[in-house]
């Protein structure tokens, strides 16, 4: 039975939402509710039946559903309410939540703290303005993954995959297992956009060719995809005439990026960062609207689920603290800025006093790959606050760095910190 008022409501029961709900309850929030649009908890993990999950947190190599089940089991023992197969229609800045489902009907709920954990969605054909006809047989990789892994149907026989994102590469292997032919993977960038380990385990091991600097020039076929025409592109991302090639296939899968899903955040009045397409957050994962927190892919797109879980835990803890007691406000904050070869940094602002409690994690993505040793440096103007060595950096792989508690004094002096990635 739903209550009218909650301490913490979490929207989305993927890895971020599950972790946030569990941690909120453990931190002391009495009434916690998770709202999920699918018919079961776990979010997209339920269709990610490949392994590779949990290496950081559990030191185990788990498939997605098994990783999710650990949290689902824990949640079940904590008396946390769940509302499944439900859609949140609206959220106000006063944290009133309007949701609907077949089971509950139309409900209005209030909460002291709200956690946004809606995850992300896939970029579509339209967002990359892919020319050609509009037949059946053009799917995002995640939609195809659902058809194969959840519904039990093959969406095609001969595939071309556009984009070297992780889901695309994982689907290349999965479809090959199921007896389909994956002709090749095309990537418009000069570098891989997903994880290198997926390139090795999903493409190289199965002799699926990857063509960098290539894209789809047009889709051919009126009712069903009959072929695609590929083309090589130059350094200015312009097609090179004469390099066109017609590749017969019945399906084109798109793995061309993920976008944080923030339509509800916008309705709640949360400010969004145009670079990440997610909310501006502080080190507590609180958004621009007091009492509304955000965690996971809704903030920025991660490559490892373990980090999503970590963000969920942090967010749930802070949301509970907000709900059960007024949090201290120091009002002395330092802005984080993306410097050389850094596309963005999360969190966007840091409470200077937070370092008195613990080290603070910064997460970022680089703009361009550097395939040699680099420093990741946190700078206050010309003064270096901290730095970390990496052997290489790639846009497909998130970079993490802690600001240690020992940097407390240096941070107090700063009004803005910038993070840069430079060759060693």
């Amino acid at each position, binding site marked *: 039975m739903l209550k009218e008022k909650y301490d913490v409501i979490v929207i989305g029961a993927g890895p971020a939402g599950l972790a946030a709900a569990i941690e909120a309850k453990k931190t002391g929030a009495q009434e916690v509710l998770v709202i999920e*649009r699918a018919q079961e908890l776990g979010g997209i993990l339920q269709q990610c039946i490949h392994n590779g999950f949990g290496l950081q947190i559990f030191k185990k190599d788990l498939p997605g559903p098994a990783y999710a089940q650990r949290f689902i089991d824990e949640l079940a023992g904590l008396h946390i309410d769940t509302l499944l*197969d439900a*859609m949140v*229609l609206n959220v106000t800045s006063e944290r009133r939540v*309007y949701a*609907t*489902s*077949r*089971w*509950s*009907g*139309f409900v209005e709920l209030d909460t002291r703290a709200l956690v946004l954990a809606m995850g992300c*969605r*896939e970029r*579509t*054909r*339209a*967002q990359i*303005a892919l*020319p*050609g*006809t*509009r*037949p*059946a047989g053009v*799917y*995002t990789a*995640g*939609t195809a993954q*659902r*058809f*194969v892994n*959840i*519904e*039990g*149907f*093959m*969406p*095609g*026989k001969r595939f071309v995959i556009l984009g070297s994102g992780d889901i695309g590469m994982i689907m290349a292997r999965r479809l090959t297992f*199921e*007896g389909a032919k994956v002709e090749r993977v095309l990537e418009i960038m000069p570098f891989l956009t997903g994880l290198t380990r997926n390139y090795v385990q999903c493409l190289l091991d199965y002799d699926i060719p990857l063509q960098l600097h290539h894209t789809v020039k*047009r*889709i051919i076929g*009126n*009712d*069903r995809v009959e072929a695609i025409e590929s083309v090589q592109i130059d350094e200015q991302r312009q097609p090179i005439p004469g390099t066109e090639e017609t590749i017969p296939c*019945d399906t084109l899968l798109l793995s061309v990026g993920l976008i944080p899903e923030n*339509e509800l955040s*916008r309705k709640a009045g949360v400010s969004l960062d145009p670079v990440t397409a997610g909310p501006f957050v502080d080190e507590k994962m609180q958004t621009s609207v007091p009492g509304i927190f955000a965690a996971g892919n809704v903030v920025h797109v991660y490559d490892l689920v373990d980090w999503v879980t970590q963000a969920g835990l942090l967010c749930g803890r802070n949301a509970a603290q907000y709900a059960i007691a007024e949090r201290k406000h120091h009002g002395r904050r330092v802005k984080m800025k993306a410097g050389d070869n850094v596309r963005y940094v999360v969190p966007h602002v840091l409470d200077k006093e937070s370092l008195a409690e613990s080290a603070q994690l910064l997460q970022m993505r680089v703009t361009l790959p550097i395939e040699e040793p680099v420093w990741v440096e946190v700078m206050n103007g010309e003064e270096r606050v901290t730095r970390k060595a990496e052997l290489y950096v790639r846009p497909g792989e998130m970079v993490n760095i802690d600001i240690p508690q020992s940097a407390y004094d240096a941070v107090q002096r700063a009004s803005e910190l910038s993070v840069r990635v430079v060759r060693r």
Partner: protein
Amino acid sequence: MADKNYDVIIIGAGVVGSMVARFLSRYKLDVLLIEKDSDIGMGASSANTAIIHAGYDPKPGTLKAEMNVVGNQMFDQLAGELNFTFERRGDYVVAIGPEEFAKLESLRQQGLENGVPGMVILNGADVRRREPNINPEVSGALWATTGGICDPFGVVIAAAENAVVNGVTLMTDTAFQDFIMDGKHIVGIKTNRGDFSSRWVVNSAGLYSDVVMHKAGLRPEFKITPRKGEYYVFDKAEITINNVLFPVPSATSKGILVTTTVHGNTIIGPNALEIDDKEDRSITREGLDEIWQGAINLVPSLSLRYSIAEFAGLRPGGNAPCENPDVKYNKDFIIEIPKQVEGLVNLGGIESPGLSSSPAIAVRVVELLKGAGEKLEEKSEWNPIRRARPRFRDMLPTEQKLLIENDPSYGRIICRCENVTEGEIVAEIHAPIPARTYDAIKRRTWLGTGRCQGGFDTPRVVEILARELGVSPLEISKKGKGSEFLVRPTKDEEAE
């Protein structure tokens, strides 16, 4: 020879054929409406700018001008009877710079000649006030208060559905092949699904209207040249243009618009490219670039970052000379009962403003039949009203609550971007004209048109269609045979 005898067979269930069927359903006639595609309204009616034109644009004295102005005036009553979305919000022809401003007055004069009421010329400051996103170099606009926007899919579906409820027989996946003649009398048609005899045949075959009339030996010189128009659709959360903005027209085209839609999305387009292939609705890089350049001339602040869809439509452009010998124009509509054969109502070249003209064309067809001696007795039971089915996203929370209490399936959202519910989908599958494909449901409910473009709903819609139609998910298609979503179950390699 024939399966059944009809009084009238209508070839093609686009907006014109559906509207003709609806107006004929008023009379004691056995009417058959055939459509070669899997659903109604999949040709020119499926991809256009969704505007009910005021009528200042067509050349005075042409059928286009007459039908446009009459048709426009019919839309208030029609929207009231058939319950499709129609908003008479007026449109603007926007002049950028001083030279274009001078052309507005001649356009207004042309409108007056065509009988268009309610046109006003605004100065630049007025236009900026009304549409703050307009190019600041705007020098003025012709404001046509009778211009409107509609749900173009809704118009076709509502008209055909009202026809069917009033006794018209609809057959989809039924393609015209030839006429059956008795001397110069048309007595029936051959289709891929058998022969049908009929006293009258209406050619409303749109892009294929030339092929159909040539089969009757008519107008051998008449040719439909498909004119492709491409469009961008924008995310309504990011870009909001509240008006219908035309550029000053060129000699050949009304130009590239920036316009709002009844669904709330801003769209830009179309360009106008003559092609040969009547099925080529592909989008091209060059075409998209062209409409982008045209659009930012009107609204410079648009951003392609927020494009969520691109599509192309085909206008069935003809080459028929205007019936009025004083008017030099050779792209006019054909609306006639030709003398060379008997039993044919011949329509052709119904391109833009065809949607706006469609009810007027239907009334003209009725008049032509009466003129040819048809008695056309009214049915006492004819019901002009077609009720709309619930649209969850357009309702107030209190109404939504009530709807779900009555039928919990309206509480389950299937399309997350457009908030389309399972109840709405099921209702369309079991409507008088059943929606049997994904695109058929999309056109009726607006599902899958948002920023995720069906990524979330597609597997769910396939499941619901299979369940409601009692077939395997393998049979569910995007737009009819040959466009099935799925090829085989997993773990079934022997099928390879």
